[in-house]
């Protein structure tokens, strides 16, 4: 099976200053990849390059056959802090915006039914007519997850879905993602390293360079070798590693 996405030697720069350099990465079906790293380390830039929102300086991003086309089957949940909360739009319209460009017959009514079902599933059907600005952080994330899922994506890309949410929702979210992962690949950016290591299958540490760890456990030696400037505080029954903060 070809990987869904194969990134080769990717360099992305802002104003000629490279934010990502020589990144190689493969995303396969049913992957659940956690992307961690310091602020400004290039996590979001990596997502934007994959989504085609940021043109790379050099390198290639190959998409498998089922991932090619004008509208790629990628569901995207952007950082909530980038959203204009005063924009006059209802929850239902936000969710529906995830399904435009499906040129099937009855596309509109299919999208509407699907949107209803997703809102129901996420437990936010009751707020469908509310304005986006009236929602709590957890409700916002749920609504944006519905939007990302509306187009039946093969890959779900989430940029810090755990900002502005309470612990209870965070737990629910990761449970939901694990279930979704049975059917699609997930790429999850998070600053909360401890929590994501409990649900992801593999980890990419991004700090200008990308280091791939094929399991959700990283030992201290590995990190020392890779110079990943992160700290992990893990808990619970899952195998965990506690790492010291270190500099690149």
């Amino acid at each position, binding site marked *: 099976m070809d990987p869904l996405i194969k990134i080769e030697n990717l360099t992305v720069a802002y104003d000629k200053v490279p934010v990502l350099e020589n990144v190689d990465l493969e995303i396969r079906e049913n992957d659940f990849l956690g992307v961690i790293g310091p602020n400004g380390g290039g996590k979001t830039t990596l997502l*934007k390059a994959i*989504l*085609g*929102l940021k043109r790379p300086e050099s390198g290639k991003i190959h998409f498998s056959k089922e991932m090619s086309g*004008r*509208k*790629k089957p*990628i569901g*995207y949940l*952007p950082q909530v802090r*980038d*959203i*204009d909360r005063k*924009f*006059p*739009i*209802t929850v239902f*319209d*936000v969710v*529906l*915006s*995830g399904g*435009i*460009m499906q040129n099937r017959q009855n596309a509109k009514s299919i999208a509407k039914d699907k949107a209803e079902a997703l809102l129901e599933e996420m437990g936010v059907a009751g707020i469908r007519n509310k*304005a*986006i*600005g*009236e929602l709590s952080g957890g409700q916002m994330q749920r609504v944006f997850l519905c*939007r990302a899922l509306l*187009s039946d994506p093969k890959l779900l890309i989430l940029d810090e879905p755990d900002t502005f949410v309470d612990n209870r929702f965070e737990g629910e979210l990761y449970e939901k993602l694990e279930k979704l992962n049975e059917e699609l690949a997930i790429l999850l950016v998070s600053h909360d390293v401890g929590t994501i290591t409990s649900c992801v299958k593999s980890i990419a540490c991004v700090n200008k360079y990308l280091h791939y760890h094929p399991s959700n456990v990283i030992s201290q030696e590995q990190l020392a070798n890779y110079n990943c400037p992160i700290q992990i505080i893990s808990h619970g029954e899952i195998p965990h590693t506690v790492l010291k903060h270190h500099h690149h």
Partner: protein
Amino acid sequence: MNAIIELFSYDFFQKAFLAAVFASISCGIIGAYIVSRRIVFISGGITHASFGGIGLAFFLGFNPLLGAVLFAVLSALGIQFFTKVAEIREDSSIAIWWSLGMALGIIFVFLTPGYTPNLMSYLFGNILTVTTSELWWMFMLNSVIVLFFAVFLRKILYIAFDEEFARTAGLPVALFNYLIMVLIALTVVLNIRVVGIILILSLLTIPQATANLFTNDFKRLLVYSSLFAFVGTIAGLFISYFLNIPSGAAIIFTLVIIFGILRLVKTFV
């Protein structure tokens, strides 16, 4: 009441009424978009830059509205170019085009021999002197705007709300932004005769602020904005006629009063 009915028998008043209807629809819709997207300042820049075109037209002796269209579109593109290509901060590039247009307008008007009697009506508007051909242009612009928003409402809304997501969803974001920028430029120019360059920004923002008191739904905002614009424009028109004060100023003043009253009502009721 009889005085009002009698007014409608005058040709100039029928034209003014039609102009008010057209101005309300175009400014209501385009203004709702501008306000939602927070591009009021860009629109102000385009509006004022168009004065340069009016001055040029006076100087060379062609239709001032044509000159205004030319400068409005040019400045819209110029602002984009300055911001994206020349990497000048957006608010600075807007200010540059805003003042450049005004400066050119003043220079051209100064160089034009003789007195330019119409100048005031472009700066402050005079809905009572709108001509038949101007009404036709306004009618065509309204048709284009209503049709465009009716057909592409969802796409316009999705792009306006979250441009990056819209791009990942495969929507032609750049094309839509460009088309709407042209519609904004045309709306501004064709409504200059109603309230004038200096006051037009209010027709694009005050009815929208009033509408926003009652809805957070984009579709409704478009409709309510047009309705509030219509009420304010018509009421302002009557006030201007009976009190014999300039129409543009009367319209804006009425719009603000309506907003103020409804805002207070909303607070206390």
